[in-house]
């Protein structure tokens, strides 16, 4: 044969190798882009969590009994959604019936964040600190510590991410 070229097998092996390498590389690239996006969303989520923590702290420092009354910790735990916070008005809140707020905080007015990152759902679980307090104790001084578990949650690429932020509030004085 005068015209020597590649056989079909050679071409097949070559193209499959090349395509395998390309698919791997593009997968890695897409993964890396996704990860850095998730990373920046994590930064924002942490910020919104900290913002809520500071605001709740200022509420409780301002007026402990009013704060406890406003969230109705009954019988001993309560989960509340927090929309965007504007200190000049009252914050938009909604009490959830379950601990993870799976069906709540989804209405558009509860979404936290600015476009194009308006994807965050923010809620806080408040419960009386079990170590030295009893939720049923009629003595109010025994109900002076609250466990505050703030969660910021968002969905991205079919997965749900959460940033938890836990702290304890104690009554001053």
């Amino acid at each position, binding site marked *: 044969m005068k015209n020597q070229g590649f056989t079909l097998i050679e071409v097949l092996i070559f193209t499959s190798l090349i395509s395998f390498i390309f698919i791997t590389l593009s997968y890695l690239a897409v993964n890396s882009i996704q990860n850095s996006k998730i990373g920046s969303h994590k930064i924002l989520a942490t*910020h919104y969590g900290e913002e809520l923590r500071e605001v709740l702290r200022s509420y409780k420092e301002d007026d402990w009994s009013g704060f406890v009354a406003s969230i109705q910790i009954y019988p001993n735990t309560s989960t509340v959604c927090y929309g965007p916070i504007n200190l000049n008005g009252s914050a938009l809140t909604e009490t959830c019936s379950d601990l993870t707020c799976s069906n709540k905080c989804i209405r558009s007015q509860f979404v936290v964040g600015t476009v194009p990152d308006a994807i965050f759902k923010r809620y806080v679980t408040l419960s009386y600190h079990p170590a030295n307090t009893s939720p049923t104790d009629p003595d109010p001084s025994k109900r002076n510590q609250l466990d505050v578990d703030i969660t910021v949650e968002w969905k991205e690429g079919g997965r749900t991410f959460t940033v938890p932020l836990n702290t304890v509030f104690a009554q001053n004085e």
Partner: protein
Amino acid sequence: MKKNKYRGFTIIELIVVIGIIGITIPAIFGIFFTMLQARAKTYVLQEVKRNGDNAVNIMETLIKQRAVGIYSDQTLITEICSTASSQSQLNDQLYFKDKDGAVFYFIYDGASPSKIASRTASATDIYNLTNQKVSVESSFSMQCFRKNTFSPPIVRIDFDVVSYSPTSTRQEENAKIHYTTQVKLRN
């Protein structure tokens, strides 16, 4: 088949090869560019959050731990927010008196990149709360009020931190974070 002394590629082969390269190279560079951009955005956002957190922390701690009174002038003569009715206006400059009777305050410095600075009575005593990579928007406000005459005054702080880079004009690498908090004077 025509006999040819020079064996090489035909024009068709060359066009196909160059065409394929022409499609793949931009795609690869596009992905690469997107990767770099996403990374730059994360970095910028991190920088903005770091600076904002730092500024808010310092202001909160100083006001909470050190301030005993709020005044509307640097010489500490006219006290404001001393009763429930004397609320400060949105753009008022607040001056804080500390335990030793000295003044400290926070100013908005509009010189680019605009920043928040912590100051005392000494003219040289200036401490910037944010660095050169971010600027603070002019909506920065500090307001004091009091729920009732017997409770300590509360200071409300509000500001936006945005990324600052005089050379880059790329919109997608800009980040902005809003900070809002309120602090109650402890003393």
